[in-house]
């Protein structure tokens, strides 16, 4: 059975590492749904957050292969109930439709979105949430006409009280050496 998994990989910050990680997916015909790369809480450690819709068995194999990459410090995977996760979406609409009625404002408020910029020609709205929630707002706004829409990859933290990576690094006696 397939479901959404969030894979997080912590790595050294080396050129080409993203490629080394993504080819692990490509070779096994696993589609990456979202991908976010950023510095992590630990200096010099990069974090990849990747979501896939796959079977548990395949995800386990892929994560082992990621973990095997020399410059990857550690890779983990989680189901949605094990993490708190968010995506960010930006919506651009014409300022005319905002001014013509209260509709846009109501939709935005109802969805707990936020207007971040208003110019004479366009207005930008942002919303945090799950992919379903940001999609819902997209569909509402699109009835009135959307000029541009973009959504980030997923970011996530675990519901665990301890940090998996910290524990791992501590074990290796190398944390903040």
């Amino acid at each position, binding site marked *: 059975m397939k479901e959404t998994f969030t894979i997080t990989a912590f790595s050294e910050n080396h050129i080409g590492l993203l490629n080394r990680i993504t080819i692990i997916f490509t070779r096994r015909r696993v589609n990456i749904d979202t991908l976010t790369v950023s510095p992590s809480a630990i200096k010099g450690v990069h974090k990849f957050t990747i979501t896939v819709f796959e079977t548990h068995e395949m995800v386990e194999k892929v994560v082992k292969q990621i973990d095997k990459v*020399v410059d990857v410090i550690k890779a983990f995977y989680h189901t949605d109930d094990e993490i708190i996760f968010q995506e960010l979406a930006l919506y651009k609409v014409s300022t005319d439709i905002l001014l013509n009625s209260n509709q846009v404002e109501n939709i935005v408020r109802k969805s707990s979105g936020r207007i971040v910029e208003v110019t004479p020609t366009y207005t930008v709205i942002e919303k945090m949430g799950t992919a379903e929630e940001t999609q819902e707002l997209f569909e509402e706004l699109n009835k009135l006409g959307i000029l541009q829409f973009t959504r980030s990859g997923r970011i996530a933290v675990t519901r665990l009280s301890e940090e998996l990576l910290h524990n791992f690094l501590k074990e290796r006696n190398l944390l903040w050496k």
Partner: protein
Amino acid sequence: MSKKVSGSHALMLSLIEEGVDYIFGYPGGAIMPVYDSMMDYQDKIKHILTRHEQGAVHAAQGYARVSGKVGVCMATSGPGATNLITGIVDAMIDSTPVVCITGQVVSPLLGTDAFQETDVVGISMPVTKWNYLVTKAEEIPWAIAQAFYIARTGRPGPVLIDITKDAQFNEFEFKYKKCESIRSYEPRPKINKDKIKEAAALINQAKKPYILFGQGIILGGAEDEFRTFIEKSGIPAAWTILGVSALETGHPLNMGMLGMHGNYATNIMNNKCDLMIAIGMRFDDRVTGNLNSFAKQAKIIHLEIDPAEIDKNVKTDVAVLGDVKETLPILTEFIEKREHSEWIGEFKALSKIEYEKVIKTDFYPETEGIRMGEVIRRINERTKGNAIIVTDVGQHQMFASRYAKLNTKRSFVTSGGLGTMGFGLPAAHGAKIGAPDKDVILFVGDGGFQMTIQELGTINQTQAAVKVVLLNNKYLGMVRQWQQLFFDRRYAETFLMNPDFITIAKGFGIEAKKVLERPELDSAIDEMLNHKGAYVLEVSIEKEDNVFPMVPTGASVSDVILEPQK
């Protein structure tokens, strides 16, 4: 103590620090500074000029496989580097420690489609354990130290270091520090004694335990620990093609080879045992046949250094992670001394059937033409199992791995996971360089020989005494066998109109002889083995010689066939 040197000198000094004694390589524009520096270190490092970069990487593999050291090869940018790729892939899939050093265009030209610029790091990414593009001279000692550490530790593999020409020229203060650990890399998984106890409990209960062993034992240098383990356990064992020299082929518990052209008993017993103990092997499809009908009745223990191999193809009941050099002695301690004579008797009964139906006629054929099996038998009788056997890929490879007698460690070199035709001749050359005191005998087919035949030139230059046994059946025999069995004998493009190999060998300055008839064979083998230098012995082989038993692709290991169905 540090001194200012150019990047290319730093590279040579780094290689010396890593104990490198041979480099197999080929020069060109982007690596010229390194070649220039090499001249100053000839007393420490010898360069062997191959005739093709593929020859260089396969030679480095052969060297690594027999010596247990890291093989080193070198090439220029662009075509030089791309010519290494096949060997890199081969080393990756067969876990061979090789460091490849390639020259790259000067760093300002990166990404400009400059002359002979190729994204070698990009191309080799999926097929290296690690790779790195060096653009600053100062990075060279660090990159080389990492490369050797990564190539040889954990599950070994190929590493590629691409060095821009400006990094080779620029000067800096050289200092070398060997790499001892990498934060992100855990080559040796921690050993979990509880798991080993669990495994031991299963072993102590088992009525029909069966050991499958692979190259992990050889890579871990755990041949002695393995022998102690099986002798105490009394469990019959079978090898994967890369695991063969982990245990003498004549050992009473050695039941033979696994896989598509492995032995009869060893294949059948996969589906008869109640406990399977897989040691340093990876359940390749050539070993398991159809996974849906592989060892379903058995509990499975897997001793393995690479966590990614656990449950990859076959689900295990107990996974024992770690270097088998460390885990096997602990396991041996926890198991009870046993003998499984009745169970071994079942193997023996099947082996007898195979002997009568297959091996006897391979060894003592009644055909007019010479068969591959008998050539190997006759060579065994002379080497007594003390030679290093190297093979190319095809029918001769399967005959050689089935029948070669091996008594010494690290004595069988073949391209297992990739099945690279053309591997044999350069790998045999590298093997002879890596084990100069041993006889190195290559079995090669007429097809594969022509893929890297130019390496006879390299062999003539080094005067390495490689003994080449060319088993000439005038066919791409293995493909022809499949055509015979599965494509109605339609021999599409498998007949080879061959050159005069003797003239070619002699043209390269190598002694050679051709044998057409059985009565000449023994004396020709003696002549080859007694000859001081390299030698090519061409043996004309029965045209439609076939390798059996066989597990057809996609079939179950239980359906191993002993002879072609009429």
